[in-house]
């Protein structure tokens, strides 16, 4: 199926070449029929052959097809070597069309698509030029401009002229103007390529350079030819320049070929190198450097997919990264391994369209990548653990300072005042017994106040009720103290190690406070259960909820996560605007494996993993 179109094009090229040879050899007006025949074949066969090769190599881009088509177009143009006026005129017109095609190829190399505005603008200008200043003249001129390499002697007249005589405007104004504009168009195209060269990665430069060289040749020869032909048509060098201009076309095709072959060579050597060297790169950073060098893109990034973590993409050091989406300067290529998505290469625009190559790169380094994902996953979790530890330590310090402040400002000050009052009371008693006794009784209630204050403080550190009776009782007491309706239910809940009960108690307390302060809830329910796996708590409120995108952060919630993580547990938050909030946590208890209590991803994370 795929063989047939290319075969058909090749056949057509061969047929046209044979026709061109026949036409050239039988043309009485040509002074060098053999040379004309050879040049015609070169004009048709070389672009067609290179086009078919490029088409076969990279079927997903249109460049090859277009180059081959241009070759066939030159086949039509070679009819200009015929003595028959109709064929000759057709050939002359085809020259113009083929010129635009050549310009298009030049601007769209190597993908075959005009990607940017400057290229599209120049091509549009060229098309407009031909449509306005070239094609209409086919209806009015008596003879096409000569000499041309095919008929340097007498060229046949224009067979498509509809008017009887040629307006002087054509020779005087239109032809010089259009020659000038043609030169300008090619000059602009050259300028664009030079700019592309300057901005290109070293890799791209290698493929663009031969094309640039051929284009310079084309521009030079066609400019000189047009100039000389318009100014002094009889000069001998016009003929030579004409041949040169014609020769520049197959040379351009060869320039394209050189660029394509060079790229293939480069791909092959890069892949070879990668396959050999990737296995030795133990460090993710080294692998990234190797791939960046192989693809000639120093800005290349390598990201690893670690499932089960929030924002699953990480860089080589285990830090979370965001993949660029809709960024015109960066492209992302996902590498998929046996277990699904493994990694992604974020690369520069210059490599856009070379998906096959990057895919091969990915495949070459896949096994190394898979190994390094484990390293990266480990680093990521170590990093998380470190940060969590640091936060816990900081929170503990803050707590200590708070206690110290509370003690100093509260209980201590009260005791000072109390002490002074006692002294005063003693003085008063020695003077006036009744007043002193009243004062002493008043002091008694001050002592009660201090006791309450110290009790509250102690509860903040570790509630005696929790220590004596366990989670259910302590949480019931906390629910009673809460300013809104709060209920507590417990299933199979017994006693657990101090740090487990403490972690769960304070998480529930924090959730309770959040619901009271922020959620504007009317009622809260706290549920404990040890049906397994692990000891689970849940605090649900009917408040305003929070939501939108992803898991919410806030220092209180982070604190809860850290507290649970410190005893091997995990936190889960379900909330939606208007639907209340449920905060759930789970802690492993004795006898269960500590590792990997999984938390179901929230809505936000599911959205992020869509590609």
């Amino acid at each position, binding site marked *: 199926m795929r063989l047939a179109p290319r075969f058909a094009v090749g056949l057509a090229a061969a047929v046209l070449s044979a026709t061109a040879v026949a036409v050239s050899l039988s043309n009485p007006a040509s002074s060098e029929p053999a040379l004309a025949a050879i040049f015609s074949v070169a004009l048709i066969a070389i672009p067609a052959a290179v086009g078919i090769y490029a088409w076969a190599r990279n079927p997903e881009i249109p460049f090859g097809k277009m180059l081959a088509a241009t070759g066939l177009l030159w086949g039509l143009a070679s009819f200009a070597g015929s003595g028959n006026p109709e064929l000759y005129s057709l050939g002359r017109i085809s020259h113009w069309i083929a010129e635009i095609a050549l310009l298009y190829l030049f601007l769209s190399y190597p993908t075959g698509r005009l990607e940017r505005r400057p290229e599209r603008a120049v091509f549009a200008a060229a098309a407009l030029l031909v449509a306005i200043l070239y094609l209409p003249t086919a209806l009015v001129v008596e003879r096409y401009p000569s000499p041309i390499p095919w008929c340097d002697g007498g060229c046949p007249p224009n067979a498509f002229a509809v008017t009887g005589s040629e307006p002087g405007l054509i020779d005087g104004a239109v032809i010089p103007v259009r020659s000038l504009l043609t030169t300008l168009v090619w000059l602009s195209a050259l300028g664009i390529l030079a700019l592309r060269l300057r901005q290109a990665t070293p890799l791209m430069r290698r493929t663009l350079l031969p094309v640039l060289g051929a284009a310079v040749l084309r521009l030079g020869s066609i400019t000189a030819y047009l100039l000389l032909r318009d100014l002094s048509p009889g000069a001998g060098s016009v003929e030579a320049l004409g041949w040169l201009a014609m020769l520049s076309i197959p040379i351009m095709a060869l320039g394209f070929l050189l660029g394509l072959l060079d790229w293939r060579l480069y791909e092959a050597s890069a892949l070879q190198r990668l396959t050999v060297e990737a296995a030795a790169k133990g460090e993710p950073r080294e692998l990234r450097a190797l791939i960046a060098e192989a693809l000639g893109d120093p800005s290349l990034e390598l990201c690893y997919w670690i499932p089960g973590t929030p924002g699953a993409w990480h860089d080589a050091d285990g830090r979370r990264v965001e993949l660029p989406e809709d960024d015109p300067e960066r492209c992302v290529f996902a590498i998929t391994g046996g277990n699904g998505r493994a990694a992604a290469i974020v690369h520069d625009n210059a490599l856009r369209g070379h998906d096959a190559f990057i895919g091969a790169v990915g495949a070459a380094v896949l096994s190394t990548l898979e190994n390094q994902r484990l390293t990266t996953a480990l680093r990521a979790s170590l990093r998380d653990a470190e940060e969590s530890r640091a936060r816990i330590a900081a929170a503990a310090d803050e707590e200590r300072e708070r206690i110290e402040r509370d003690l100093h400002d509260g209980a201590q000050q009260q005791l*000072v005042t109390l*002490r002074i009052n006692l*002294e*005063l009371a003693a003085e008063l008693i020695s003077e006036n017994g009744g007043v002193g006794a009243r004062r002493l009784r008043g002091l008694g209630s001050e002592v009660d106040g201090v006791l309450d204050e110290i009790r509250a403080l102690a509860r903040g550190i570790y509630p005696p009720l929790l220590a004596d009776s366990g989670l259910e009782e302590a949480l019931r007491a906390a629910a009673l103290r809460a300013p809104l309706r709060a209920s507590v239910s417990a299933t199979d809940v017994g006693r657990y190690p101090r740090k487990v009960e403490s972690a769960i108690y304070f998480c529930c307390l924090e959730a309770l406070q959040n619901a009271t302060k922020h959620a504007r809830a009317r009622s809260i329910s706290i549920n404990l259960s040890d049906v397994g796996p692990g000891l689970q708590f849940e605090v649900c409120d009917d408040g305003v909820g929070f939501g939108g995108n992803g898991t919410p952060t806030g220092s209180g919630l982070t604190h809860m996560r850290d507290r649970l993580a410190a005893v091997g547990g995990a936190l889960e938050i379900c909330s939606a605007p208007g639907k209340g909030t449920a905060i759930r946590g789970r802690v492993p208890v004795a006898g269960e494996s500590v590792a990997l209590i999984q938390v179901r991803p929230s809505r936000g994370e599911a959205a992020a993993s869509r590609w």
Partner: protein
Amino acid sequence: MQGNVRVLTVDDHLPFLRVAHEVIEATPGFEPAREVSSGAEALALADTLDPDLTLIDVNMPEMSGIEVARRLKQARPAKLVVLISSTDPGELPPSVRTCGADAVVRKQDLGPALLRRLVRAGGPGENP
């Protein structure tokens, strides 16, 4: 001495200012001139009020009690300036001794007996 000993108390804790006022009032021979909660206020009032005894808390937020004591003593060396502290006097910085204050006492020891002692020998007690 003629008249009552007029006492200015400087402390950022309002409950203490209240109880100090009561103690001073209940002590014969003493009268509370004013209670202020910052060193700046105390310095501003020193001239107009002319207290015979000034009690200053060492630990105050904006201006340290030690600094206030130093300035008051410089301006009016004949009047008594006593530093009061809620921490153990042994844990106070050395500048407490060099600032010129007449004495350093514990807050909780404030009472009629202490006031009398301070005034009697112009500042016995925990003499620096």
